[in-house]
């Protein structure tokens, strides 16, 4: 087990910069998830930690040692691939023990480690099968078993659940979390799925266009996104961004969305935004869960407005409602019994205690 550190790591392919100088410190035992859209450099970063890609510039350290020029086999890491990369001609046991056999571990120890890992992953019955005879979820477990038996300093996961169906993905997500709770190996996990990132990570690293947008715990990213990208990427359905500006209204700070709709900001928010120029083009960032049906006893800071719904999506425990404000598409989550209907007018309530204000030009959360 070890900590991992990236110092100004750059990866260039010819004239394309895939990773543009990232700094990242991963503590021992930590579960870090790199998340971002495809092409953001997250897989490249992982592969550089693994040693499967050379780094163009910067340093990568594992356990305090610079490993820039150390080949993958000497980095003491284990990796789980998206398509599992199991050796098709070897049985499950042979797949899991391959690394140990190459390192000439004693037979008894290999057997003990494989048995232990198989027990941990609940694949003891499959030990003599070939990968072809396994389901996707079972193959995934074997791939994890192959990583666990090596007892490496760092686990690397490259989109390990992408090939599984939705139900199995949820199940394996929990399995991975359980395994990490037991073995506590430092883990770097790459995914494009923000739900996976939020549920698994101690800390999430949101990447975009080869750079780190924000590093934080899942709750930090959700409640205090630093940029429009993070605010829009984390959370499903995504945060709404509505064009707006600030205006003074008799000593109070208001936020004006349309000619008709203008809300007074709650005192805490008003204090925070008071110094901003009133002429700036701003975006109101509000999550769908903070737009719901209006009712009689509204808390302070919750403001109502009338709109006409475009589309409603009943999800069972809630109904998603879609409408437009100032040309921006907006999504809200209402109680399924609130009577939301396609094309019907509805009075909704917006919880401004949970609002964000963004600079439209820079995308920075203010």
């Amino acid at each position, binding site marked *: 087990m070890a900590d991992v550190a990236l110092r100004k790591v750059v990866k260039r392919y010819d004239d394309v910069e895939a990773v543009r100088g990232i700094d990242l410190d991963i503590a021992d035992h930590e579960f870090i998830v790199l998340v971002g859209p495809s092409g953001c450099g997250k897989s490249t970063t992982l592969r550089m930690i*693994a*040693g*499967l890609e050379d780094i163009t510039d910067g340093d990568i350290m594992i356990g305090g040692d610079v490993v820039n020029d150390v*080949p*993958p*086999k000497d980095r003491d*890491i*284990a*990796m789980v*691939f*998206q*398509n599992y*990369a*199991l*050796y*098709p*001609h070897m049985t499950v046991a042979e797949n899991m023990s*391959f*690394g140990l056999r*190459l*390192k000439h571990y004693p037979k008894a120890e290999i057997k003990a480690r494989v048995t232990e890992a198989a027990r941990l992953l609940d694949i003891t019955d499959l030990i003599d099968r*070939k990968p*072809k005879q396994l389901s996707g979820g079972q193959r995934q477990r074997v791939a994890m078993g*192959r990583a666990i038996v*090596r007892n490496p300093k760092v686990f690397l996961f490259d989109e390990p659940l992408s090939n599984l169906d939705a139900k199995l993905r949820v199940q394996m997500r929990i399995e991975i979390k359980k395994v990490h709770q037991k073995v506590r190996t430092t883990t770097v996990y790459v995914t494009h799925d923000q739900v996976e990132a939020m549920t698994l990570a101690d800390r999430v690293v949101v990447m975009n266009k080869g750079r780190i947008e924000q590093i934080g715990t899942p709750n930090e990213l959700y409640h205090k996104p630093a940029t429009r990208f993070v605010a829009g990427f984390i959370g499903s359905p995504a945060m709404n961004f509505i064009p707006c500006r600030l205006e003074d209204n008799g000593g109070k700070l208001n936020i004006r969305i349309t000619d008709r709709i203008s809300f007074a900001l709650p005192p805490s928010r008003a204090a925070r935004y008071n110094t901003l120029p009133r002429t700036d083009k701003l975006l109101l960032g509000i999550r769908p869960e903070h737009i719901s049906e209006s009712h009689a006893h509204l808390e302070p800071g919750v403001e109502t407005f009338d709109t006409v719904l475009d589309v409603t999506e009943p999800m069972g425990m809630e109904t998603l409602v879609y409408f437009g404000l100032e040309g921006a598409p907006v999504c809200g989550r209402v109680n399924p019994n609130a009577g939301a209907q396609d094309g019907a007018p509805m009075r909704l309530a917006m919880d401004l205690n949970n609002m964000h204000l963004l600079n439209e030009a820079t995308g920075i959360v203010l």
Partner: protein
Amino acid sequence: MLTLPLIILIALLVLYPAVYSIHLATLNKSMQKFVGFGNFTFLFKRDTFWMVVKQSCIFAVTAVFFKALIGFIVAHFVHNIPGKKQRKWRGMLLVPWVIPPAMSTLAWLWLFDPSYSAFNYTLSFFGIGPVNWLGDTAWARFSVILVNVWYGAPFFLIMYLAALKSVPEQLYEAAAIDGANWWQRIWYVTLPMMRNIIAITTLFSLIVTFANFDIVRILTSGGPLDRTHIFATWAFKVGIEGSDIPLGASVSLFMVPILAIAAIFILRDVNKRGNEA
């Protein structure tokens, strides 16, 4: 009923020639009298026949082995050449295989000429030779095998190259992380992944090489002293040149059981592994 056209085709193109050659093999030299296994019992008593059996086996097995080995090695080099350049190299390396062997072997015949060939001329600078390439028994055997390898290796190259491309890159990455060095990656990943292709190409090449005719015919005509004869050339010699067609047919029929045994072994192995990958 829908298979009727297929049945007719097979009957015409496979069954008829096969049955006819078996029928031929049971006739006497003038093809007037039925002699049963007479031609075979006659062959079994001839030393030349057993020599041809032995030579055919040596010729085919050695040639196929080196074709496979060279094809495998060169396929690796070509596989590592990036993109467009690879196509050029692939094209150039296929040349020996696409030139009709009757023509290219003539070029080899001149190269092997004992008195004024390029080979002996070059060797003379090192104080070696002249080597009697096609006149000396051992050298003649070496030469026919060499030309056959030169002609057949590109086929292995192209098959292995295709097989190499189908091995997922992530298996090599997984092996690299598992601690396998270059050689171990070939031994534990490449070879097992290519086993079926290797087996089938080997079988196919074994059949074709066993039945080879043109190279030996042009280079040595079986000589010196029948020491380079293989089934097809000897069958031609006794059948056409010696005007004993039934005996020639018996010689060539003798290839069938040998190849059948090889095919059974190789295909059984392929079947066993077929449902793995």
